[in-house]
């Protein structure tokens, strides 16, 4: 009855309730954090809680003839009162090759080096175990879709500045190239950080093929777009935290009047050159009519649970709806939804009438995402619709996140497809299995496309459909006649679609002519084509060094696909590590490591290959920026009041040449030759129009035939009458 008897019970009750409240709060916070999305996910790893913030996030993109160089600079802030390790997870941009990772240590930029993945991890962990750790940074590709960046230590209340550079080859769809800076991601389900800082993105697009449009489907009202002239456009965006929950998408359009080839080269002084060759169908081929026969379309829509993330199912539905509505009345279609089991909407191929299209749209809207993913039964069902007398197209909309063991089964199913079938895959969102979807399309002569949730799905659907209707050229084969070209990547693409160029990378040894003969054979809209052209391959070209890494990335990509198809990567590991280290690109088997100073690199016997490569890349990129600045300044002179143009010209000529304000820390040991290279002049894209088999040979039409018959009949009649009279 005395109070002390009840106190322990009361205390324990309060303690229990308090613990429940705390656990509930944690669960609720975690639950909400799972579904939040951010500009990558930044957490403090290795301890309970921990908050870091991205204070600044600046993105600078320079697109030079379809090759995008993205420079991301971020400043992290440790808001905790303790030292933490930062773990930053972000999605892999499509076809991106990470070419540089730098950290600012003691106010100086330290450029990272690429090392075999396991070794890089061991080096990084060895620093973490030290009593007074130095400042290592590690950037790894975790799998085909995710990068992870670790920095340790970040002191209490301290800031850490980093820079990441990656190169991408942009794909063209119906003359539109789309650049996506991925921000929407839920790749990490742990606690999220607040994105409170400033975000800016600036894009400069330079093209030898005239630019005819630029737009942002994701941030239409947020971008300022300036078209300086028809070869250079610029766009700029600044955003706050609450606008960073979707990808930034920018699209620009080029139009090549005539079908032709363009080549970009890079030829360092002491090694063989590199080239990127682009074959583009021109506008003159756009006039040609579609075939008279319709096609059968079998749409496969993935409705498994993974499609619920990032509005993937919603995006897929809208895209498919646009696709179906754009079908011609001669076409037929079926809609199959699948998760662990497929379900056909109509159980027959329905003509693409308005009524059937409406019913298809209605069925799409009723779908919800749940369950696992088994693609093989759906693909097998799709094959059953194929008829021998009509071309069939299977369009798969999925994130490709099916079971790993199904991959081999799928690949062998694709190899046994009927002859008149092509498979087109459309990957939606950032968290997708790009390698699988790409391989499925490639193995069947189809195409793969990838949509971001910020993309214009109607335009993409229309562009995709145009490709399906109009493969401009099939059986395309590009060969190099002079024998000085080798290690060609990308030449296995044999179908040219209007609005989607074929790109080939390779190496070359220059000859005395500094050119090479290229032979193209193809079937162009039913007619055989055989043409040779000469393309320049100079003995010296210090511009476009990003092509070298793009070539290496494509080579790694091919090796991985071949190895995965064979079932084991063991045979290609050594080559992939060699390419990753030699060309300083991050792969699934090589990583970037940043160390505090040159002595640490020497201690681990790490060569400063990337530092030298970055120096050359930056010089070339600065030359491009200078050229873009000149174009910008020239166009600015036409603005403002009259008379100011002349004054501006005088002022511009008096200004000093801008240099890159960031001076990286370079290795102290003397390096041969390259250190004193001047900034190279940007090498111009070189192109040649292909003379297409524009044949002439008019037809005799029915009217003339009738008249000819009339003349014939009349002459015969008069002849017979004369004979009769004579008789």
């Amino acid at each position: 009855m005395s109070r002390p008897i009840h106190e322990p019970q009361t205390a324990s009750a309060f303690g229990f309730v308090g613990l429940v409240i705390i656990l509930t709060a944690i669960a609720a916070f975690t639950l909400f954090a799972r579904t939040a999305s951010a500009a990558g996910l930044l957490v403090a790893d290795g301890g309970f809680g921990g908050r870091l913030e991205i204070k600044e996030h600046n993105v600078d993109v320079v697109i030079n003839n379809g090759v995008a160089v993205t420079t991301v600079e971020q400043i992290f802030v440790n808001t905790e009162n303790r030292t933490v390790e930062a773990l930053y997870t972000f999605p892999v941009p499509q076809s991106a090759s990470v070419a540089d990772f730098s950290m600012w240590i003691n106010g100086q930029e330290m450029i990272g080096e690429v090392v075999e993945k396991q070794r890089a991890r061991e080096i990084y962990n060895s620093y973490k175990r030290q009593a007074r750790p130095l400042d290592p940074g590690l950037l790894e590709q975790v799998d085909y879709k995710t990068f992870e960046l670790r920095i340790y230590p970040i002191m209490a209340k301290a800031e850490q500045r980093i820079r990441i550079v990656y190169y991408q080859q942009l794909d063209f769809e119906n003359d539109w190239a789309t650049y996506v800076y991925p921000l929407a991601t839920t790749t990490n389900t742990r606690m999220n950080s607040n994105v409170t800082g400033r975000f800016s993105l600036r894009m400069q697009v330079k093209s030898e093929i005239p630019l005819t449009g630029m737009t942002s489907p994701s941030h239409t009202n947020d971008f300022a777009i300036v078209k300086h002239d028809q070869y250079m456009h610029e766009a700029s965006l600044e955003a706050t935290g609450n606008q960073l929950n979707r990808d930034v998408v920018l699209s620009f359009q080029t139009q090549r009047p005539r079908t032709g080839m363009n080549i970009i080269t890079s030829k360092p002084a002491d090694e063989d050159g590199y080239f990127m060759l682009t074959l583009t169908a021109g506008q003159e081929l756009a006039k040609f009519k579609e075939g008279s026969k319709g096609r059968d379309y079998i749409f496969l829509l993935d409705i498994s649970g993974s499609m619920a993330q990032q509005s993937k199912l919603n995006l897929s539905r809208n895209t498919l709806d646009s696709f179906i509505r754009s079908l011609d009345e001669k076409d037929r279609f079926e809609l199959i939804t699948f998760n662990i089991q497929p379900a056909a909407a109509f159980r027959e191929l329905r003509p693409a009438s308005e009524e059937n299209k409406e019913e298809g749209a209605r069925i799409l809207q009723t779908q919800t995402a749940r369950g696992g993913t088994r693609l093989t039964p759906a693909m097998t069902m799709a094959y059953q619709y194929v008829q021998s007398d009509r071309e069939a197209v299977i369009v798969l909309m999925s994130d490709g996140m099916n079971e790993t063991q199904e991959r081999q089964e799928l690949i062998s199913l694709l190899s046994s497809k009927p002859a008149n079938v092509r498979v087109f895959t459309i990957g939606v969102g950032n968290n997708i299995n790009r390698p699988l979807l790409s391989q499925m399309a490639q193995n069947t002569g189809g195409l793969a496309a990838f949509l971001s949730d910020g993309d214009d799905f109607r335009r993409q659907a229309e562009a995709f459909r145009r490709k399906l209707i109009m493969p401009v050229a099939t059986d395309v084969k590009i060969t190099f006649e002079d024998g000085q070209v080798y290690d060609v990547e990308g030449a296995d693409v044999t179908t040219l679609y209007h609005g989607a160029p074929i790109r080939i990378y390779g190496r070359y040894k220059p000859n005395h002519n500094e050119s090479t003969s290229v032979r193209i054979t193809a079937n162009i809209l039913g007619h055989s084509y055989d043409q040779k052209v000469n393309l320049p391959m100079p003995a010296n070209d210090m511009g476009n060094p990003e092509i070298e890494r793009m070539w290496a990335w494509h080579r790694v990509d091919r090796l991985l696909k071949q190895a995965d198809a064979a079932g084991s990567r063991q045979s290609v590991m050594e080559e992939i590590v060699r390419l990753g280290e030699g060309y300083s690109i991050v792969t699934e088997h090589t990583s970037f490591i940043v160390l505090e100073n040159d002595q640490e690199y020497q201690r681990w016997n790490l060569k400063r290959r990337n530092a030298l490569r970055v120096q050359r890349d930056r010089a070339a990129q600065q030359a491009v920026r200078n050229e873009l600045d000149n174009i910008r300044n020239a166009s600015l002179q036409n603005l403002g009041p009259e008379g100011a143009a002349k004054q501006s010209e005088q002022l511009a000529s008096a200004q000093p040449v801008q240099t890159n304000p960031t001076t990286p820390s370079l290795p102290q040991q003397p390096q041969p030759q390259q250190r004193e290279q001047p900034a190279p002049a940007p090498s111009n894209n070189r192109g040649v129009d292909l003379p297409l088999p524009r044949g002439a040979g008019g037809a005799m039409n029915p009217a003339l035939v009738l008249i000819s018959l009339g003349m014939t009949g009349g002459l015969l009649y008069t002849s017979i009458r004369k004979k009769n009279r004579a008789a």
Partner: protein
Amino acid sequence: MKKFPWLTFAIIAASITIHLLQLDGFFQWSRGEGFSLDQFWMLASSHLAHWSTSHLIWNALMFAMLGSLIEVRSRKAMVRALILSVLLIIPAVAYFMPEVTAYRGLSGTASALFVLLACMIWKQQAGPLMKIIAVLAITSLLGKCAYELIYENAAFAQLGETIIACPQAHLAGALAGLLSFRVSGRRQSVHERIIIPASQGA
């Protein structure tokens, strides 16, 4: 005794043979070629090559009809028309159609025979119906060419996506047919002036 139109059928047989042996590409005219001595034969051979089987069939039928009618009446006139066609059609295509990189087909020479026959009917046939047919023939050909020139498309016919109609070739052929008829007319007039006075003087 009427002549057998062997020249007409020889030309058609040659076209069919070339197509069956898939030698159309070899015999076609390609831009940048055909105007040197060793390539002059392409100006003639290109008329025997075709883009497709349907292209060949249509042209062969027309050529057979028109060529037979003309050749049984005047082989010389037909030969003149063919020679003038060879001299006029390819140069017209090369000059007036710079986007064309290759030429094939009998339709240009068929246009020459078409106009030649219409002119012959106009001159030699007394009945009004035939004269109307002759006028209609030439008017239709000119109308078809005008339509194709304006709309850049094959009127009433479609050969294929990379093959375009060639009204310039048909107009050049028509001119060849007309010139051939004019030459035939002058030779006939001269023949009559020379022969008749000689017979009268005998």
